C-alpha cells in the first residue's frame, strides 16, 4: 500500500516536471536557434519570451481542428494518441538519481526498475513507428503517405545500429537494468577520470556513443535526418493534415522522444548521475554554476542592453542565487546532487541536438538509407565485436 502511494506521488511529480520541461524545451530550442542565427527569438510574450510556450498551448487548443474528408476516422485519431503514448511510456523506466529518503520512506528516483529496462525502451521505441505510419496513411494525402512511409522506413532502419550501439556498453555493464548499468559506472580510475562507459573498461565506448547519437537523431526525426517532415520538401510530411491538439500531440511526442534518447545516452555512456570529478569537490559545481549565472544576470541587469532588462534580469539573478543556496544546503545535497548531474548531462545532450538542428543541412533520403545500411550498421557491428573480444579477454 505504501509502495502504491509513493509510486503515485512519483508519477505525479515526474509527469508534471516532464510536461513542463517539454513545453520549455521548445522555448530553449527557439532561443538557441535564434541566437545562432544572430537574432533574438521569442522576446515579447513575458520577460524574454518565457510565456511563449503558454501562448502556444493556448493557440493550439483554441485552433479549429480540421479533419479532412474521406479519412479513416479511427486511425486518424489513433495515430497521435499512439505516438504520444509510446513517447511518454518510455520515460517510466529511466532513473533520475540515486536512492533518496523522505520522512523515513526510502525510494528510488524512478518509476519502475525493470530488470529488462533497456529492452523495454527498445520495445517502446519500436512501437513508436506505428504512430507515424498510421498518421501518414490515414490522412488520405499523397504527401503525407510518402512522408509516413519514409519516416517509418528510416526509423526501423536506424533501430538496428542503435540496438547494436546499445549492446556494447551492455557487455561492459553486465545487466539490462538501467539502475545496474549506472551503478557499474561508479567510481574513478587513476583517481580523477570517471569510470563512465566512454572513458573506461577494456574498450572505451566512444564509437558506440557517436553511433548511438547519430541513430538517435534518425529515430527522433531530427535534422539532419528530418526529410520525412521537412517543410520545404514534403509540406511537413506525415503530420500535414493534423491541426490544433493532434499536431501538438505529435510535437510533444517528438520532444519526449528526444528527452528519452538523451536520457538513455546519459545512462549508458555518460555515467548517469555520477559526478565528473571526485565527490567532495564535485558538490561545489552546481552552486558555482548557478551563482555564476546569477551574477551574470545581475551584471547584465546593471548595464541593460534593452530597457526592460533593468527589471527582469535582476529577478532572474535572485532566482539563480536562491537555487545556488539551495544546492549548498547540507541535508539536501545527497538527494539533489545526483539529479543535478543527470539533468546537466541530459541537458547538454539536448543542447547538442538543438545546436545541430541550427547548423546542419538535411540528408537526402537515399543518402540517409545508404548511410544507415552501408556504414553505420557495419560500424556498430564491428564495435560490438571488438568490445566483446576485449571484454572476454580482460574481464
Amino acid at each position: 500500500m505504501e509502495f502504491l502511494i509513493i509510486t503515485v506521488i512519483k508519477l505525479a511529480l515526474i509527469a508534471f516536471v516532464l510536461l513542463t520541461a517539454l513545453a520549455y524545451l521548445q522555448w530553449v530550442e527557439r532561443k538557441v536557434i535564434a541566437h545562432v542565427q544572430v537574432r533574438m527569438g521569442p522576446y515579447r510574450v513575458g520577460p524574454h519570451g518565457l510565456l511563449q510556450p503558454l501562448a502556444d498551448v493556448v493557440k493550439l487548443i483554441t485552433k479549429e481542428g480540421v479533419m479532412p474528408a474521406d479519412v479513416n476516422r479511427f486511425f486518424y485519431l489513433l495515430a497521435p494518441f499512439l505516438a504520444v503514448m509510446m513517447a511518454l511510456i518510455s520515460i517510466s523506466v529511466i532513473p533520475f538519481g540515486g536512492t533518496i529518503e523522505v520522512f523515513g520512506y526510502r525510494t528510488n528516483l524512478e518509476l519502475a526498475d525493470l530488470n529488462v529496462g533497456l529492452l523495454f525502451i527498445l520495445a517502446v521505441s519500436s512501437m513508436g513507428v506505428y504512430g507515424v505510419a498510421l498518421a501518414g496513411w490515414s490522412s488520405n494525402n499523397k504527401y503525407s503517405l510518402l512522408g509516413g512511409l519514409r519516416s517509418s522506413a528510416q526509423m526501423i532502419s536506424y533501430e538496428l545500429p542503435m540496438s547494436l550501439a546499445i549492446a556494447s556498453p551492455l557487455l561492459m555493464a553486465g545487466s539490462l537494468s538501467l539502475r545496474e548499468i549506472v551503478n557499474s559506472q561508479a567510481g574513478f580510475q587513476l583517481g580523477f577520470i570517471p569510470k563512465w562507459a566512454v572513458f573506461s573498461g577494456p574498450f572505451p565506448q566512444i564509437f558506440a556513443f557517436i553511433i548511438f547519437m547519430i541513430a538517435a537523431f534518425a529515430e527522433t526525426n531530427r535534422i539532419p535526418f528530418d526529410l520525412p517532415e521537412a517543410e520545404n520538401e514534403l509540406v511537413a510530411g506525415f503530420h500535414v493534415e493534423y491541426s490544433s491538439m493532434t499536431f501538438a500531440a505529435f510535437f510533444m511526442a517528438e520532444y519526449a522522444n528526444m528527452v528519452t534518447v538523451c536520457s538513455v545516452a546519459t545512462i549508458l555512456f555518460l555515467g548517469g548521475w555520477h559526478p565528473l570529478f571526485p565527490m567532495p569537490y564535485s558538490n561545489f559545481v552546481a552552486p558555482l554554476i548557478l551563482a555564476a549565472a546569477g551574477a551574470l544576470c545581475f551584471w547584465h541587469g546593471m548595464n541593460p542592453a534593452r530597457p526592460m532588462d533593468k527589471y527582469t534580469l535582476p529577478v532572474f539573478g535572485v532566482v539563480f542565487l536562491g537555487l545556488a543556496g539551495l544546492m549548498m544546503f547540507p541535508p539536501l545535497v545527497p538527494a539533489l546532487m545526483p539529479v543535478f548531474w543527470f539533468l546537466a548531462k541530459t541537458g547538454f545532450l539536448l543542447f547538442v541536438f538543438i545546436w545541430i538542428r541550427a547548423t546542419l543541412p538535411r540528408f537526402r533520403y537515399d543518402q540517409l538509407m545508404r548511410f544507415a545500411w552501408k556504414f553505420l550498421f557495419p560500424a556498430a557491428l564491428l564495435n560490438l565485436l571488438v568490445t566483446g573480444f576485449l571484454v572476454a579477454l580482460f574481464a
Partner: protein
Amino acid sequence: MDIFFFILFATIAVVCGISVILQKHPISSALSLVGVMGSIAVLYLALGAEFIAMAQIIVYAGAVMVLFIFVIMLLNAGAEQAAGRSWMAQLLGIPALLAMFGVVAYFIQSYFGNAGFMKFGNFKGGSAQSVGMALFTDYLLPFEVTSVLILVAILGAIVLARKELD
C-alpha cells in the same frame, strides 16, 4: 491478482483475435493482430518470460507487423469485398470449428487439468542471462543455423522484390 490479469489480457487477446478474422480492411486486421501480440506479451511477463516478452514486442509487434503494414500501404490494399460463399461452407464452418476447439479443450483438460498453478514470480529462469546461457551452450547449433536461415530469407526477399534489370 494473477487471475485478474490473466482474465483481462486473455479477453483482450481473444477479442482482438476475433477482430483479426472479422475485419474487412487489412489494416484493421493488422492492428488487431498487434493488439493480440501485445496482450500475449503481457501474459508472457506474467509467466516469468521477461526476455521473450520484450523480444515479442521488439521483433514481432515492432518489426514483422510494421512490415505487414508497409506492404498493405504500398499495395494500397482495399477492403475485401464480401463474395458469395457456398451455403454448405457457411452452414458447416462455424460448428466444425467449435467442434475442433471442443475436442482440443477436452484433451487439454483431461491431460493437463492437474498440471499445477501459475503464480507470478514462481519461475525466475526467464531472464536474459538464462536464455543467453541456454542459447549459447545447449542450443548453439540451432542458433547458428537460424543465422543462416535469416541470411537465406534476406537473399530471397531481395531477389523476389527487386526491379527487373532490362
